């Protein structure tokens, strides 16, 4: 529920002026439903970073492969302007005879905005997707890559949230799986300005020959906790640079909407402009800490941290903690259940 099973959903949105929000089937597929995004320094080697984009909640129940028509992106903003300057783009072959492969391109500069493939160097090619318990890892130059089914690292009392912050049901995700995409990259690949670096996950679908924005995520649970109804899909369809100015279906800005929710929950409305744009700040020259708004580790209790912030300290915990199945080495995500 960082963003599990939330929008994009099977609902059509009437686009607001300036917003291209093409939603409805085939959008809303679990294969491209982003559940979480992580970025942390490689344990034991702070010259490298681990980037994780998880999709497909409850895997393999709703989907048993990656979408061969989609593009899975980890976008990197190196200048603090909420625009991607680099993009790790992952594409998958068709799922055939129980197997699938991945190719990773690193888009740099002007091609990032164009979302095209021509001219981009492939940093990983033909990497097998893991469908079993043993992770298949591909190494290419300074990069390591994994994609496949793993234990969902997220932890949260989901039913407690649904019951209105009545946290007594335990960790819904302790026996769930996701499809994880994990990259180990040298920090040098993320640019040279760590203090202004941030990232977010994005999935794009091919619809009638055009690429359409499907889902996106920076920090945990932003869309789930703050956006209502069709605003969730509008939020997914815009880029972070528009988070401060785009309008919700009520005609107010997302910032104003966030301020209203924060006020109602007892939090500081001023947090709205900290939470937006929805990007995961990641200064790789410093230790990773979600509490310090710097990256996100698998074991970071993002829900406890967020609860304390959005309720002004009224609630501080959902009474569940990190899983015990994280691996100490690449790809770090635990063995699937």
């Amino acid at each position, binding site marked *: 529920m960082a963003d599990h099973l939330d929008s994009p959903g099977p*609902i059509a949105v009437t686009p607001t002026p300036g917003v291209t929000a093409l939603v409805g089937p085939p959008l809303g597929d679990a294969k491209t439903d982003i559940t979480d995004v992580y970025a942390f320094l490689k344990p034991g080697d702070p010259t490298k970073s681990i980037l994780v984009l998880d999709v497909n909640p409850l895997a393999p129940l709703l989907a048993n492969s990656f979408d061969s028509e989609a593009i899975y992106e980890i976008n990197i903003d190196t200048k603090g302007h909420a625009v991607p300057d680099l993009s790790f783009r992952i594409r998958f072959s068709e799922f055939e005879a129980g197997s699938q492969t991945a190719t990773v391109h690193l888009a740099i500069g002007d091609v990032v905005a164009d979302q095209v493939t021509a001219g981009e160097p492939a940093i990983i090619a033909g990497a097998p997707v893991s469908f079993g318990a043993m992770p298949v890892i591909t190494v290419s130059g300074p990069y390591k890559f994994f994609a496949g089914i793993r234990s969902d690292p997220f932890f949260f009392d989901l039913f407690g949230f649904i019951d209105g912050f009545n946290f007594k049901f335990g960790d819904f995700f302790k026996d769930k799986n996701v499809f994880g995409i994990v990259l180990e990259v040298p920090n040098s690949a993320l640019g040279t300005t760590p203090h202004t670096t941030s990232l977010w996950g994005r999935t794009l679908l091919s619809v009638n020959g055009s690429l359409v924005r499907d889902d996106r995520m920076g920090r945990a649970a932003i869309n789930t906790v703050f956006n209502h109804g069709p605003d969730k899909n509008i939020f997914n369809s815009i880029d972070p640079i528009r988070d401060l100015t785009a309008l919700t279906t009520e005609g107010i800005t997302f910032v104003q909407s966030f301020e209203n929710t924060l006020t109602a929950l007892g939090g500081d409305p001023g947090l709205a402009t900290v939470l937006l744009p929805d990007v995961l700040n990641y200064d790789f020259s410093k230790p990773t800490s979600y509490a310090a708004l710097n990256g996100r580790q698998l074991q970071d209790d993002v829900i406890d941290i967020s609860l304390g912030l959005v309720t002004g300290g009224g609630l501080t915990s959902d009474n569940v903690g990190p899983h015990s199945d994280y691996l100490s080495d690449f790809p770090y995500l635990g063995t699937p259940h």
Partner: protein
Amino acid sequence: MKTMDRRDFLKMAGAGAAVVAGAAMPVAGFFAWNGKDILRFRAVAGMPKAPLPTYASYVVEGQVDIRARTGQLAKSLYAGAPEAMSGIVFPGTARAVRVTDVQKVGGNLLISGEIAKPATLLKGESSAFSILIDRSAGMAQADFLGSKVLLRLDD
């Protein structure tokens, strides 16, 4: 999320993975009488309540024989708000309810029952279940994991 139709549901249920149901499939006449004694209904509530955005839909549906005071209900928690409900049932939330009594209370109908497999209950969830149906208001009230919840009756 991808919406699945009832055929998909039956296929998955047959495979032992009854987590995806056909709730998103439009069905005409949720609230209907079959003769003068058999009532069919569906009641839905968005969860959680404001100021939090609605994330899931609590659905209680089924059929009761008012004269015989019997029937079968199903209650489930679906992903998505009522206006954008998916066909995905959150694992561990689907319940079959065996109706044990039906009472007319004023203009309302009080349906009582028991969860068919109490071993599956979540913490705080009772094996006893009841739903009060107020047809004139188009509303119902039922228990959700220990809390009372107002649901809207679907026509």
